[in-house]
């Protein structure tokens, strides 16, 4: 076991990034023209990085598996993006955003990275407005904000319930400008299947053209992975169907350490699953917790009556309801961070209070908000002695204006009207804080190989706060990587074009082709989805919202069995040299199986509860997560040595010089 060097610059935390930028090596514009950079993934991180690197003058080769870079799953982010602008004058600052993010991450992120993130957050909003992103505004024409969980200020900028879409289209438009100028060569419907290393440095990738099946070699002076998270290891998640960990996992197998895979975010407000055929889960924005109150019945008889249909949730009086978040966490109430809210819902459902047929649902109720807004509106409009109906109608109009599109989405899926009966929600896998280990420069443990956005591990510790994913993706791509990668590439100005006709490319291409050949020729008995669902089930049951030693050991065993069965009996129809979606999935699921095993191993190693990682053995007397700072205030970065079970642990000790380590309390 070695200690990892995070390459954090010396000096006071608020000067580190500025000093760093003042002292790095630069590449002159003429030399940039002879340097190539590969960017894999075109979400907020990859799209913004590709555009910015091209603007700077590098030749960018960008790749995405979708039919257009505009479809990357960043597009589905609903609620908003954080920035320490303090436009509301409510006491926000870079320091406070830094502090909230460290605390929200349960003191498991790297201070210097998070401070840098807070420093550039304001610039992101400036940049996006300049690009024409239509953020919500107030009647004075200035930008509007809302609140998200885990913080006490309003710093979230938003564009209706489609903030991710608008920010991604902003990055996409910046890319388009560079594609038109020939500075980005865009490869749509291409999937990276391996990285190529030459003399220890990342010098290219092997990619499959998903339409023709052709295997292609692409070379560059540096490779940037921005392929998103691995939430689909659970099969069911709020990720897109195609979201996958292949690029991140392939680089792991070529030497990039994989950090903290057990840190997974289970989002509290998702639509519960309805049957075995379910293919994905749908998120309801965290913004709903601004006005929705979460509850289950106080008495088990009422739960039974609701399930049998003899009672409706609206029949229950306030006394008969248990608003469990407000009860347990009076200071933050329904706006506790995601991990806390999810576990509290699970605790109630495990105790038998779940309100739907599967017993896995709690209510998210807007009746109080409708009544509160209704009374307020009646005053504003001088309605004296308003009837209940008048109050309801006035209040409903306000709720509709705020959340109309989300309510409509819920009704389309569930076929129930959430204005009349409370929504049913349950936690679902949403985001992965773990990922490829990177240093302060966002470089992995392989030289010249970078990892940005959700795909890396760096900024969110053990739990991410709402509206911070968009911030990190764009910070990495627009404002951090373009500096740090320049420092590295300044050593490559005399290298010249990297040839793809070398033994290293031959070898990488051969191993990619061998695996594809295997899948096509195996002619097994079960579909790829059969295995993916099996894996997902193990992950959810044993590596889900709460974990214990016994379950994790079983999980490792069971995943190894799935792996054996998969490599023997998987059935992939169709041919190699054609559009073949089953073949694409087979490779992705093969990687998820290995990742799942490392995930369980990491969760087993971490004998503490922190953020999204909750070990049943480590709880306080009142059932809250219990951290062990003395022994586990480190990043667990795993080195691949042939099998996930044999991965070697490397530790990066986390140092907290500017924030005091405290028990996280939202009470």
């Amino acid at each position, binding site marked *: 076991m070695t200690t990892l060097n995070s390459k954090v610059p010396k000096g006071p935390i608020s000067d580190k990034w500025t000093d760093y930028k003042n002292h790095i090596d630069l590449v002159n514009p003429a030399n940039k023209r002879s340097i190539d950079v590969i960017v894999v993934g075109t979400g907020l991180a990859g799209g*913004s990085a590709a*555009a*910015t690197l091209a*603007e700077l003058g590098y030749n960018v080769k960008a790749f995405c598996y979708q*039919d*257009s*870079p*505009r*479809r990357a*799953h960043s*597009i*589905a982010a609903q609620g908003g993006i954080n920035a320490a*602008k303090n436009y509301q004058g409510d006491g926000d600052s870079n320091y406070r955003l830094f502090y909230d993010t460290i605390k929200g991450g349960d003191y498991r992120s790297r201070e210097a990275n998070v401070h840098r993130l807070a420093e*550039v957050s304001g*610039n992101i909003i*400036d*940049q996006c407005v*300049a*690009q*024409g992103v*239509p*953020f*919500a*505004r*107030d009647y*004075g*024409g*200035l930008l509007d904000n809302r609140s998200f969980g885990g913080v006490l200020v309003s710093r979230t900028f938003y*564009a*209706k319930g*489609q903030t991710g*879409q608008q920010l991604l*289209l902003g990055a*996409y*438009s910046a890319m*388009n400008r560079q*594609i*038109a100028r020939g500075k980005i060569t865009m490869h*749509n419907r291409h999937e990276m299947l391996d990285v190529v290393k030459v003399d220890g440095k990342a010098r290219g990738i092997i990619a499959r053209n998903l*339409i023709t099946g052709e295997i292609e070699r692409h070379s560059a002076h540096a490779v940037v992975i921005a392929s998103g998270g691995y939430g689909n290891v659970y099969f069911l998640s709020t990720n*897109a*169907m195609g979201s996958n960990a292949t690029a991140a996992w392939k680089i792991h197998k070529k030497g990039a350490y994989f950090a903290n895979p057990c840190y997974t975010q289970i989002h509290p407000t998702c639509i519960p699953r*309805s*049957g075995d*055929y379910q*293919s*994905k889960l749908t998120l309801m924005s965290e913004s709903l917790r601004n006005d929705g109150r979460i509850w289950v019945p106080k008495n088990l008889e009422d739960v039974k009556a609701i399930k049998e249909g003899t009672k409706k949730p609206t029949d229950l009086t306030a006394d008969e309801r248990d608003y469990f978040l407000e009860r347990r966490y009076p200071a933050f109430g329904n706006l506790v961070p995601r991990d806390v809210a999810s576990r509290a819902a699970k605790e109630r459902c495990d105790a038998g209070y779940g309100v739907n047929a599967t017993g896995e649902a709690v209510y998210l109720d807007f009746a109080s908000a409708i009544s509160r807004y209704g009374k307020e509106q009646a005053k504003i409009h001088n309605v004296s002695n308003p009837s209940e109906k008048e109050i309801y109608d006035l209040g409903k109009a306000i709720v509709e204006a705020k959340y109309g599109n989300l309510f*409509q*989405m819920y009704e*389309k*899926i569930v*076929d129930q009207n959430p204005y009349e009966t409370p929504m049913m929600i349950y936690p679902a896998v949403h985001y992965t804080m773990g990922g490829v280990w990177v240093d302060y420069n966002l470089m992995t443990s392989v030289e010249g190989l970078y990892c940005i956005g959700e795909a890396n591990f760096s900024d969110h510790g053990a739990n991410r706060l709402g509206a911070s994913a968009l911030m990190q993706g764009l910070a990495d791509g627009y*404002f951090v990587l373009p500096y740090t990668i320049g420092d590295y590439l300044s050593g490559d100005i005399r290298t010249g074009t990297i040839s793809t006709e070398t033994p290293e490319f031959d070898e990488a291409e051969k191993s990619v082709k061998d695996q594809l050949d295997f899948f096509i020729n195996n002619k097994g008995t079960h*579909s790829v*989805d059969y295995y993916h669902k099996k894996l997902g089930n193990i992950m959810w049951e044993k590596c889900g919202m709460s974990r214990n030693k016994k379950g994790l050991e079983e999980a490792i065993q069971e995943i190894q069995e799935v792996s054996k069965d998969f490599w023997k009996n998987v*059935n992939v*129809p169709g041919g190699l040299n*054609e*559009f073949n979606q*089953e073949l694409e999935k087979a490779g992705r699921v093969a990687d998820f199986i290995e990742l799942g095993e490392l995930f369980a191993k990491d969760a087993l190693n971490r004998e503490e509860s922190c953020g999204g990682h909750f070990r049943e053995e480590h709880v306080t007397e009142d059932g809250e997560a219990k951290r062990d700072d003395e022994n586990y205030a480190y990043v667990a970065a795993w080195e691949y040595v042939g099998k996930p079970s044999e991965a070697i642990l490397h530790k990066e000790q986390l140092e907290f010089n500017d924030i005091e380590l405290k028990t996280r309390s939202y009470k």
Partner: protein
Amino acid sequence: MNLTLKIWRQKDANDKGRLVEYKVTDISEHMSFLEMMDVLNEQLINKGDEPVAFDHDCREGICGMCSMYINGEAHGPDKGVTTCQLHMRMFKDGDTIYIEPFRANAFPVVKDLVVDRSSFDRIQQAGGYISVNTSGNTQDANATPISKIAADQAMDAATCIGCGACVATCKNSSAMLFVSAKVSQYALLPQGQVEATDRVLNMVAQMDAEGFGNCTNTGACEVECPKGISLENIARMNREYMKASSQG
């Protein structure tokens, strides 16, 4: 419920293509349309047949990837939804459902229900952006107030997901709704004014070069648009185009 499906099968861009009949049984009304397609594909794979290729990704109506023409309507019979948001409760037991790709000359079929919409990307590359470098040295975001009405209207136009339902549903295969959504977003904002002339001229020229048809004000695109993009945007683009042309 039990259903008969008549699905367009086409091996690749050069194949002629044909409708093939399939049966699915025990479909729950709570399934999404694409989950029904998953059931069919699992059935086909287990029988040793090739599954039906179709585009899909987010399955929550925002990525714009899914693109089926169902019983003669882009994204099927429900209003304001993409194919992935369509639920089987819109159908009844014993129904026969026709499933085809989005059809247009500018959207060639890749395989089965998958089409190539890269023409949309090329139109965006012709001018669907504001030329500002991502240096972080732009002015403060609140330096220029923008009226709430303009910002909201720009947002309404900007919600276009680029799925192509407007083109698929138009008798002329016109892309006017798609192109006008982007032109409108920038036309409504102060940031978009500097390049307004070139933008509209270049985007329209590229739209024509890709082989999309003209607009004859039928309005089918607005009816079928899953995001409710308004025809007003086409009127605004025409105005922008006239203005730009007269400035020559």
